[in-house]
């Protein structure tokens, strides 16, 4: 079979480029323009990233059923927090709540805390509302709410999955030590955020 020449490949590429849809010239930076802008939102802040990953790591340390209950609970509670943020329901000390979530979740990972199942869910659900609320008030206006929301929720879920995957090293002794160290680091960063928020 005769291979297409390099020139033909370039022309094919040119054809594809020229065939692209019309440019959307009026989209402003920061608008809810689609799936990928939704994905980028939760990973744009260190505090959110560390808290989400810590939820996954803690779930992995706790094992079943927490390992799957937490990633199921968190997005829904976060969305309720987001709804409250959208509606402008007053919720005090949001930044302090988010910083506190890092301190508490990091400490839970460090200590390998194993409270009763309902307490684990309550802690995670409580902090999820703060994170969701902050996102709800920050979410930009735009014309693609569904795609943006899908990307936003999936990115949050993927951060949990990343945490669970990292938490799987818990089965080895060195892994337990590494997770404890990471949990301590998250708590310390949380203390810094807490201090910044309170100042």
């Amino acid at each position, binding site marked *: 079979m005769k291979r297409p020449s390099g020139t033909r490949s370039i022309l094919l590429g040119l054809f594809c480029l*020229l065939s692209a*849809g019309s440019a959307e010239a009026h989209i402003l930076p920061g608008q809810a323009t689609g799936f990928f802008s939704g994905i980028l939102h939760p990973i744009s802040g260190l505090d959110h990233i560390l808290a989400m990953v810590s939820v996954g790591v803690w779930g992995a340390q706790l094992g079943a059923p927490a390992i799957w209950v937490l990633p199921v609970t968190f*997005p829904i509670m976060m969305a309720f927090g987001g709804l409250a943020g*959208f509606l402008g329901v007053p919720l005090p000390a949001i930044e302090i709540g988010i910083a506190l979530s890092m301190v508490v979740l990091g400490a839970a990972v460090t200590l390998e805390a194993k409270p009763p199942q309902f307490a684990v869910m309550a802690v995670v659900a409580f902090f999820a509302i703060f994170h969701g609320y902050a996102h709800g008030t920050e*979410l930009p206006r735009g014309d693609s709410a569904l795609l943006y929301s899908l990307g936003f929720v999936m990115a949050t879920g993927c951060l949990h999955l990343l945490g669970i995957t990292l938490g799987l090293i818990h089965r080895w002794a060195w892994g337990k030590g590494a997770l404890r160290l990471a949990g301590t680091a998250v708590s310390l960063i949380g203390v810094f955020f807490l201090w910044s928020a309170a100042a």
Partner: protein
Amino acid sequence: MTSWSRGHQRVASDALAALSGALAVSPAEAHLVTTGLGPIYDGVSHVFLSPEDLVPAVVLALLGGRCGPETGRRVLFVLPLAWLLGGLVGLVAAGVAALPDLAWLSFVIVGGLVAANLKLSSAIITALAALLGLFHGFLNGSTMGYSADGLRALIGVAATIFVLSALFAAAVVAFRQEALRIGVQVLGSWTAATGILLLGWLLR
């Protein structure tokens, strides 16, 4: 003519072909994607390019499959038929009747049921499939009514829903590993969360 100049002539003709192809791009249509392959394929592509239809249909198929092969089979037939029926009503009622934007509710109900891992009766799932199919079908039909081939596009939509329901319901029925079943539950949670955020967006 030398081979060098023949080569350039070929490049020039290819460039001309590429340019003319690019300039011949068809105009966008807001409510029905035009594939250029006919209304049936327009209907097929509509499903894949409309997450407000695609996601609830897939998650409902997952829900049906989770409740066993019998429920999965019911969803397989009830959902596309209801979708087609709702679409036909929508075609007739285009411009006359309108439904509120309740896509978020489909996400919340179907996603919430999958996330909660409830064992629902086959009758409830079937009724849910009928309601969801009628609602989304009506919305599709009422927008497609403005195009000449709305009926054939609807057939494409319903056929795609049938195939997707078959694939996803059968996949869940076949899941034996606990991790995969939990994965479905997490997908349900993401769907419900998306629906709640959509509601917030609407109310803002």
